[in-house]
């Protein structure tokens, strides 16, 4: 334990580590602490029927977020696997949380009006300002923006105490639940695909259909493969890791001048697929029920035509910017 703290101390006092990295690490520490708060709150919550599993999930996430940098990759991997198992075995639940009383929020809206948009927009403006004006980066800017928003909210309304934020946070993160780990998990899957050479194998097969080096054909296949795979999988985030490695890089990205723009636009090409698939149930099927619509595909029917236009626009845009 002592050696571990020494390692942190050495890292913090190392002048070669940038201020940006140190502040980002501080931000991860705060994220770990608030996630740890959620873990203990659930552990002590007798109304949560799955309180032990819930505790295991959030506490492992908290440890990896806060101290991941100072833990060996192997131990981190084991912790993440435990986190995933708690989720897979459906042992993560939601405890007692206090929702917002609509009468109260209406009263506050009457009192503050559009002033509430100031703390609301503070985070985005702060991210932008930090990214453009400092060397600290957008993520540190988001952290600072949250701090700023908290201060403004506390000055606006004396009812907003530190516990108010923590309780509302517990409620909000409980709604997301185990899916909180999904983006990092998908990124790691991409890393494992790359390491195992999955991309090379896909590229070999696709290469039999499209000639390597023909960027025009490659770009169109890349831009169409994203929505197609998203329609099948229902999730553009899952599609981008596979398609970028297997098609995007070998047939397009390594030949163009602006691979970052193409790589990014591929994701939003995938979003056009999300608009057209019942597999993306959260966006396209759940609203049908929420709005009590008669047609199960009522939402998709109002999305597929614009989706095609947006996809065509993006393909043309990719050819211009490549």
């Amino acid at each position: 334990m002592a050696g571990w703290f020494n390692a942190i101390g050495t890292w913090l006092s190392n002048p070669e580590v940038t201020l940006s990295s140190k502040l980002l690490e501080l931000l991860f520490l705060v994220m770990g602490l608030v996630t740890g708060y959620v873990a203990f709150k659930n552990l002590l919550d007798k109304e949560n029927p799955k309180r032990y599993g819930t505790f295991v999930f959030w506490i492992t996430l908290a440890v990896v977020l806060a101290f991941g940098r100072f833990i060996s990759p192997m131990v981190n991997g084991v912790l993440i696997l435990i986190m995933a198992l708690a989720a897979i075995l459906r042992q993560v639940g939601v405890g007692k949380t206090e929702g917002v009383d609509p009468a109260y929020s209406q009263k506050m809206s009457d009192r503050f009006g559009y002033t509430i948009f100031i703390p609301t927009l503070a985070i985005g403006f702060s991210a932008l300002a930090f990214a453009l004006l400092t060397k600290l980066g957008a993520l540190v800017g988001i952290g600072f923006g949250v701090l700023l928003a908290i201060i403004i909210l506390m000055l606006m309304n004396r009812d907003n105490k530190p516990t108010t934020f923590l309780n509302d946070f517990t409620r909000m993160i409980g709604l997301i639940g185990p899916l909180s780990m999904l983006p990092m998990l998908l990124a790691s899957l991409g890393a494992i695909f790359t390491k195992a050479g999955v991309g090379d194998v896909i590229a070999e097969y696709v290469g039999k259909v499209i000639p390597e080096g023909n960027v025009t054909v490659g770009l169109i296949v890349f831009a169409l493969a994203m929505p197609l795979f998203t329609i099948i999988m229902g999730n553009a985030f899952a599609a981008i890791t596979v398609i970028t490695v297997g098609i995007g890089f070998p047939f397009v990205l390594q030949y163009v001048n602006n691979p970052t723009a193409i790589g990014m636009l591929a994701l939003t090409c995938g979003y056009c697929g999300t608009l057209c698939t019942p597999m993306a149930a959260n966006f396209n099927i759940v609203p049908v029920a929420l709005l009590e619509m008669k047609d199960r595909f009522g939402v998709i029917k109002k999305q597929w035509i614009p989706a095609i236009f947006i996809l065509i626009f993006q393909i043309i845009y990719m050819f211009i910017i490549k």
Partner: protein
Amino acid sequence: MIKLLGVLIVILGFALKLDSILIIVAAMVVTALVGGIGFGGMLETLGSSFVANRGMAIFIITLLVTGTLERNGLRESAAKLISKVKGASAGAVISAYAVMRVIFAAFNVGFGGVAGFVRPVVLPMGLGAVKSKGFEPHEDHVEAIKGHGAGSENVTWFFGQVLFIGGSGALLVQSTLKNLGIESDLVYLSRVEIPVAIFATIVYIIYTMISDRKYMQQYYGSKPAAPVAAEGKEA
């Protein structure tokens, strides 16, 4: 060929609507085993990649204020803002919502989704716009208003949120590209999407306005001009 087993698991798993985390973990283990990485190597790659991508968990810190903003009347104030277009057509109400939502999406702010905003605010305002002209909304028109309400919600959120610097989509693209040896800048990744977000919002608004006008003419006639042809199917 056998290396693609993990990809197959991902595609089939999502298509069969299995648990997302289960699918990804299964694909990782299988790919590591058939790809020569081994279980230990998988744990190490998982550990270092997950830690390197902790930036994607940045949404956790923003949740510290999301709930409290709602507590302090964010949703009600947003409703007040779009109610400024009261008395317009249903299409105009939905379009106003689309504009407001895409702007706020660029700041990573939502208003509660279909359950929290479209159903309680946008839908009644859209129906109210039809009624204010003296018509009882036809069921097909009501269905269309609902569909466009949810559609504008999705389109503006997808293409607006990528403008937020440090959004999870761009972070995922950044990490995927980094694995392939391509460095990228978050501000640039957001900037690239600006034309797409503008185009997507405008297309959706035009589509909504055309569709809404078609329903207005089809079911309520184009006002005094042709009251007899009101029942006609052509629009």
